[in-house]
């Protein structure tokens, strides 16, 4: 079990506990935790509606693949700490990380 902290669009931070043996992406965990993200494409790095900013722990995440890089490069509001939650698989290394939800709400 790890704990990650999620900051919603209103700036409110909430810790959530996630088991690490579930083989889910951060996007799926956010959806399951009732955060309002569209995840239109279902995890294929196509829509960027699960765009998150990594406030703490960015350097400890696996580097983004080509699909994710290309998508982040096109986004008007992505920063150097931006990732797509659908491309981040929940792992032990994510314990203590802080993510801010950025993707479009509609």
């Amino acid at each position, binding site marked *: 079990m790890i704990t990650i902290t999620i900051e919603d669009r209103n700036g409110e931070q909430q810790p959530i506990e996630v088991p690490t043996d579930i083989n889910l992406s951060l996007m799926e965990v956010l959806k399951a935790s009732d955060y309002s993200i569209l995840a239109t494409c279902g995890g294929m790095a196509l829509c960027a509606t699960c765009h998150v900013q990594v406030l703490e722990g960015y350097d400890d995440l696996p580097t983004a693949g080509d699909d994710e*890089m*290309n998508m982040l*490069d*096109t986004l*008007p509001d992505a920063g150097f700490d931006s990732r797509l939650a659908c491309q981040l698989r929940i792992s032990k290394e994510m314990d203590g990380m802080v993510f801010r939800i950025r993707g479009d709400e509609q």
Partner: protein
Amino acid sequence: MIKTDICIIGAGPVGLFAVFEAGLLKMRCHLIDTLPQVGGQLSEIYPRKPIYDIPGYPTIDAQDLIDRLMEQIAPFKPEFTLGERVETLLKQDDGSYIVGTSDGSLIHASVVVIAGGLGCFEPRKPDVQDLANFEGKGVEYMVKNPEHFRAKKVILAGGGDSALDWTIFLADVAERVTLIHRGDTFRGAPDSAEKVFELAREGVIDLILQSNLVSVSGNGKLNEVSYIGRDKIKKSIETDYLIPLFGLSPKLGPIGTWGLNIDKSAIEVNTFDYSTNVEGIYAIGDINTYPGKLKLILCGFHEAALMAQSAFKHVYPDQKLSFKYTTVYGVNSF
């Protein structure tokens, strides 16, 4: 005007299988898709990816599934309008519909089935003050005809491949090209990025890094774009055109304005028959939503079967539907 029983919007796997389920009940289908070929995401995005959860196929490549669906529905002679986007829906006095496309095709059908998957891909628009007021008046989201920009001042914004490629191309065409990018490097396409840096060093273009667009202004027509750079100071550039190139994002598009109940960009349906809140319009596959919805091809197939049973009453209002197994009656082509 094309006449059919069911107009299916979207020619992905679920739209294609709907032709089969409709065909068993003697209903003809016409499909429209914004892509130039059938198959939706499967053919466009991941044709060679294996799919593991199609019943009866331990594994099947996405394009193979589409090819087999086309073979399966061939007896029912579906017709297609491809490469056109659905724009309008007009309800007729008898309850039927006329669907209109971006290229002016008109399809008259008793029933409309939306099997639009992710929706259609539209340019992503940055959050810039007054941007919408200048769309078509200097703000363009794609380069349709580069000649349009000959001897004009053009600002491009974005950091993806298309922003780089058009910067390089328009450098030879426009009077002056400026590229504004929020980062200071370009992560994709190293060759194009190097070329853009070279053009900037040679003074052929202006490259403004670590900067974000903030507003646009002009008197009826765009003539100034403002941005904020690393130093947090707002600066302005005179220009004829601004081309924000921030990729494409899937949107419902014009379907979103048809009076359908929408939840998080998906169309709400009744799981009894996958009908929407509008009589005679159904939504199946990834584009719909209901409690417990799973975005799976196999779920879309199930939805197509139930939709067809319900659509029958619109197409043949005077006939009674009797359910028949293909194992008993076979597949009777048109």
